[in-house]
């Protein structure tokens, strides 16, 4: 009975167009935000923040970026890791080469560089479709990995090719403690999630989805494929790039190209598929699933006090992980987001069956 929208009449289109038209949802999201911003920083253990929440937030951001490309515009990309890498290394270069470069500025500029690279590798999408495109995007992955290993200028001539970010600070505030890092990421994710949501529910979002669903029809109603696809690549890789910069600066703080290898790209793709293609909320679900699940799995033995061989544990983890992915695809190919909305539907009718 709690989840009811009866009596909530929209009196204006604005009211009907808002992100969460239903009152209960607005309350819920408000609570979540309060929890995330106010409660968590105080109660969460350092481990929870450093090892789970921060990666979760950053990867959610990346997943949102990828979801715009794959979920909304229907262009499969296996090269996401590359764009993260570009973001991270570009931000690093702005940071070390320009004195007094504010942190946020270099992170965003990192995103801009990723945008440029993203658009370049997006151009083939104008001709290449589907799986062909997916594999073609691997070119980006491998080429970028190689470039950062080989071109020493990009890594400020560090002999090993690995780079590291200096003590982070924003307007004199040190970003050092887990809590501050967590909040820093949280702000980014919240803002970008909102902006992304605005885009996908606006005109450009409709263009992207139109391209995804029926490109010929889209062209006939005057949508330019070039514009739609390239903006999708641009926006997507910008967000992904910023996420990459955060991953490098905030989470790892010292990294090498391997931190953005093919597995990273696959994980992100998993996140958007498991979470739900074409759903911002789904990106969060997906990220949570992919980040938390393996950790939960290989912690299991210790919780239940059965110390099993490390190797076996790792193998079981990867087996269960793989199995669950298949399981979810079978149960709900449209991802957790769809399950979520179905759950809500059920809740609306509850306790009366339809």
């Amino acid at each position, binding site marked *: 009975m709690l989840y009811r929208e009866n009596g909530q009449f929209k009196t204006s289109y604005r009211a009907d167009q808002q992100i969460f038209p239903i009152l209960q949802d607005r309350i819920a999201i408000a609570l979540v935000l309060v929890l995330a911003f106010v409660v968590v920083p105080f109660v969460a253990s350092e481990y929870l923040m450093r090892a789970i929440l921060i990666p979760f937030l950053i990867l959610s951001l990346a997943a949102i970026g990828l979801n715009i490309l794959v979920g909304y515009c229907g262009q499969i990309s296996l090269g996401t890791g590359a764009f993260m890498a570009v973001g991270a290394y570009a931000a690093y270069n702005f940071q070390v080469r320009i004195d007094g470069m504010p942190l946020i500025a270099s992170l965003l500029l990192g995103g801009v560089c990723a945008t440029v690279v993203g658009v370049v590798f997006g151009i083939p999408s104008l001709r290449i479709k589907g799986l062909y495109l997916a594999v073609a995007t691997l070119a980006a992955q491998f080429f970028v990995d190689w470039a950062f290993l080989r071109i020493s200028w990009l890594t400020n001539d560090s002999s090993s090719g690995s780079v590291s970010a200096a003590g982070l600070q924003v307007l004199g505030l040190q970003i050092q403690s887990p809590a501050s890092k967590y909040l820093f990421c949280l702000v980014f994710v919240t803002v970008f999630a909102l902006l992304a949501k605005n885009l996908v529910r606006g005109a450009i979002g409709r263009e992207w989805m139109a391209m995804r669903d029926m490109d010929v029809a889209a062209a006939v109603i005057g949508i330019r494929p070039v514009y739609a696809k390239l903006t999708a690549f641009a926006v997507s890789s910008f967000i992904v790039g910023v996420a990459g910069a955060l991953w490098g600066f905030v989470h790892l703080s010292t990294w090498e190209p*391997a931190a953005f290898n093919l597995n990273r790209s696959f994980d992100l793709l998993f996140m958007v598929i498991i979470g739900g293609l074409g759903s911002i909320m789904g990106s969060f679900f997906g990220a949570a699933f992919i980040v938390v699940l393996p950790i939960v799995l290989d912690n299991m033995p210790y919780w239940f006090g059965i110390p099993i061989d490390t190797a076996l544990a790792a193998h079981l983890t990867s087996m269960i992980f793989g199995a669950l992915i298949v399981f979810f695809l079978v149960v709900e190919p449209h991802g957790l987001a769809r399950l979520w909305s179905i759950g809500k539907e059920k809740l609306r009718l509850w306790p009366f069956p339809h």
Partner: protein
Amino acid sequence: MKVKSLFMAAAVTAAGLASLITSPAAFAQAKEQFYPLLVYRTGPYAPNGTPWANGKQDYIKMINARDGGINGVKLTYEECETGYATDKGVECYERLKGKNGGATVFDPQSTGITFALTDKAPIDKIPLITLGYGLSAAQDGMIFKWNFPLMGSYWTGADILVQHIAKTAGGYDKLKGKKIALVYHDSPFGKEPIPELQERSKMHSFDLQLIPVAAPGVDQKAAWLQVRQSRPDYVMLWGWGVMNSTALKEAQATGYPREKMYGVWWAGAEPDVKDVGMGAKGYNALALNTAGTHPKVMQDILKYVHGKDAGTGPKDEVGSVLYTRGVIIQMLSIEATRRAQERFGKGKVMTGEQVRWGFENLALDQKKLDSLGFAGVMRPLSTSCADHMGSTWARIETWDGAKWNVQPTWYEADEQIIKPMVKAAAEKYAAEKKWTRRTAADCQS
């Protein structure tokens, strides 16, 4: 069905998070020294990572069984699988650092993870020990307070190889005009030695050919075609895991003489040559330590650990090269703890910070080593505030088709070359990190 599975997923996640919040609560157990063990028993490098990990674990078990710990302080440990992946390594570090009264020391077993942990260690006040790997610059303890690249770095290793090659060639002057190819793992690990070798090639005007091999190194055909094309006088092999055995097989397939191949100490273990067998006969590699079960420490492990079938791995693995290295690493950690106890109180549980001091003041002379049962296994080492390496000595070993034979001569890396490089690199790192040099006073702490 669908909704059920949604709730199931939610439940799993919730349960997970809940217990993760509570799990690392740091209530110190009574008198237990905790050694977190970052290992990889899976993934591309498992065959090499596993004996290493087993060595570390068995030594702890042995000390507990034989001496009942360090001056009565029992030793505990917990493993975490990194799969050689940096982000996983960071997660493991965060998971274990607070557990069971706090981590004593970390041995990341991976250059990549070491890089990532180098910034975290000073904040959490936990020493990092990277025996024979990691950041070469970290030798400079005045800047890298928490890193301990004990017994050698890639720079010292490369330097020693050049020395040995010069010796076999009959003097440095003979290197002039010679061609040395570096076949390296295309990653920070493989690229680390390059600056040192370039330095050397300038000195002795031999030309250095760089041939990268993409990780994990299963496809080296092109690399060895290049070797065959340029016919270098010597090949240095800077590989890890499957890359080594593959390289040897390709060398055989392209008919490059194995006698002229020299590997780093990570390319000189049984897994690298085992299944090449006679094909690798004559191949040389750096040796930080000997192999074999004759040393007393191995006997003790066989007696106190495998004897009570508490062995971590198979029995016949005891005394293999990487296993021995694992034992040495664990021994050094424990000796550092013991040293710390001498200063901060015998029979007490040491914090990471105290153990760091222990690492910085290690003095393992031959006598001490013998008493520990490491006679002939390794070179004595003594660390200091300025020198976190303790020893830059190594030998050359040669594969005779069945086992590794260590050659008698010890080489020491040339300070004249290494020191300035370390200093410069450390300064650069410090500048980027906005770190400051430690003061003499800080050394007393």
